[in-house]
């Protein structure tokens, strides 16, 4: 399918149209940072944003979410399913890749109806990245610097206009809210191609090995000294998992209202880098040290998720690197493991007499 072109001057009008029917969530500038938040008027949006503190996963998997409410007196119990029609606007491609992983996880086996209901009612309008958002991002290494699927609409900034790829019928209908998206002309095609080929050299490769080697690299690095070193540095604050678009581990707790007769069961984000994550009754902790927790975190990012879902477990957004006070991050970790990797041949020689 070809793409459409919309002059930027028509963009606010289109968002106005969306706001008639949808909740619109997109990047907004709050003081000197950006965050995904509900927009009330087109002027709230800033599509030139670098990165956001929290990823857009919070729209699909809120930080604090009611799963069900119960009333003990009447015995009534009800699932809280949120179906509010929403446009999630301006999602960078790394975050779009992350949402594909969340989709796979929550659809797998017993489907999570709460996530899926939200997901089905969220239209994803993604945005092509044309320059690195921070020094810490490494999306190009992780293969997330572009997308070919998974969006309803995909925007590319052409200077005075947007090129708009249509990824679904729902996306098409959303685009029909405006009359200003015209079929692309030959000139538009060459402008888009130029823009896309210009962008790639602006992004560095930061991972020193190939992404397809990560799982194997980790497999031989379980006993690396690096885990101990990371464990000694790590503060166990859990910021890295909170800001991560591919982290979805959660806790479930009950909250009771003042009558003590009614309440809710709540899901909230949790993180495997927090010390109590794997504690069981009796107090035994199955990952009792920062060292074990960091290793588990990076094995999930570089190995387990890829093996379970065929999708990258780290999309290279760099948010955790921004958030970590002691400068622990995936790309440096993977690179260091790679440097310390003992070649197979040498290991064999050492073991064999």
């Amino acid at each position, binding site marked *: 399918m070809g793409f459409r072109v919309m002059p930027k001057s028509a963009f606010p009008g289109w968002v106005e149209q969306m706001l008639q029917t949808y909740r619109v969530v997109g990047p907004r500038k709050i003081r000197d940072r950006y965050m995904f938040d509900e927009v009330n008027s087109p002027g709230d949006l800033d599509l030139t944003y670098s990165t956001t503190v929290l990823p857009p996963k919070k729209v699909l998997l809120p930080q604090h979410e009611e799963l069900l409410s119960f009333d003990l007196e009447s015995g009534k119990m009800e699932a809280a399913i949120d179906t509010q029609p929403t446009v999630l606007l301006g999602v960078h491609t790394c975050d779009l890749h992350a949402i594909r992983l969340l989709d796979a996880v929550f659809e797998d086996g017993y489907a999570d109806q709460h996530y899926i209901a939200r997901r089905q009612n969220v239209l994803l309008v993604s945005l092509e990245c044309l320059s690195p958002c921070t020094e810490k991002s490494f999306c190009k290494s992780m293969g997330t610097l572009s997308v070919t699927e998974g969006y309803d609409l995909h925007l590319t900034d052409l200077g005075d206009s947007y090129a708009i790829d249509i990824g679904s019928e729902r996306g098409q209908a959303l685009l029909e809210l405006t009359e200003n998206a015209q079929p692309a002309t030959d000139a538009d095609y060459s402008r888009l191609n130029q823009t896309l080929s210009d962008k790639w050299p602006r992004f560095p490769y930061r991972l020193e090995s190939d992404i397809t080697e990560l799982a194997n690299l980790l497999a031989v690095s379980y006993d690396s000294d690096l885990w101990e070193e990371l464990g000694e540095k790590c503060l166990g604050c859990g910021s890295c998992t909170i800001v991560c678009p591919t982290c979805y*581990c*959660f806790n479930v707790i009950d909250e009771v209202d003042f009558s003590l007769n009614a309440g809710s069961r709540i899901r909230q984000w*949790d993180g495997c880098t927090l010390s109590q994550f794997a504690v069981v009754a009796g107090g035994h902790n199955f990952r009792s040290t920062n060292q074990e927790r960091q290793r588990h975190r990076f094995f999930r990012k570089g190995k387990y998720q890829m093996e379970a879902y065929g999708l990258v477990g780290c999309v290279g957004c760099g948010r955790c690197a921004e958030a970590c006070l002691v400068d622990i991050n995936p790309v440096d970790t993977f690179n260091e493991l790679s440097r310390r990797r003992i070649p197979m041949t040498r290991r064999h020689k050492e073991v064999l007499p």
Partner: protein
Amino acid sequence: MTLLKDKIVSSSLYVPVQATIRDIRALTPLEKVFSLTLPDGMLLNHEPGQFVELSVFGVGEAPISITSSPSRSNGFFELCVRNAGDMTGVLHQMKPGDVVGVRGPFGRPFPMNRFLGKDLIFAIGGLGLAPARSVINQVLDERGKYGKVIILYGARTPGDLLFTDELEEWDRRSDVELHLTVDRPAEGWDGNVGVITTLFSHVQVYARNTVAITLGPPVMYRFVLMELLGKGVPEGNIWFSFERRMKCGVGKCGHCQIHHLYTCKDGPTFSFAEIKHLEGAL
């Protein structure tokens, strides 16, 4: 005929069905057996080794093994629960007629098909008898399908032994070999004293044809394993059930992960062959 499982597929996987407590039996000051019925003739339809997520509304939810065997589910099922924290603490205060929430059954059951014709040796410590009882009674109800049945069971003191009425029943059977031990004896105890591994000298097994099912606290596993491997029981025939923190029961919340495996859906039953390479699993 509705299954409990279909219920959670239709509305929300997190919404429990309201089960009624029909009977409560105290086994020790810390452990009680709760007999539960599902509403509207709904069936649990479980297999030995599976668990449910049990909730007390307003307090919380926790995974609990189903201790009754599928062969004995006459419209109810049983859970043996230790008072260990918030939810189980409140549960222990509850009375027959009270309502609790149940989701499940979850987890990979023991592969009973692969146990057919084998000699079975159960090595059980403490609360491990709760999940083990489901397997044992299933086996006893189809006794002819299996070889020898040997049960080794250890508790801290004689007063901590669970299901003593059934222990006596098993002891009386000529087709079951039961050996008990306690860490610390009490007045009137004339049985074995010592950890569970001291019982292994009493039993003869044809190792190659033996399946071992070992259930108990993590500290026990390593020692029992050494005995079993020492006797020559094949690694793939040694089965455990693991306890981990769990919040969903279906492989999403992340708490129960052992390396790449989720205890809730890939387990909680695992053979030694499956987990021997995974540091920290045992």
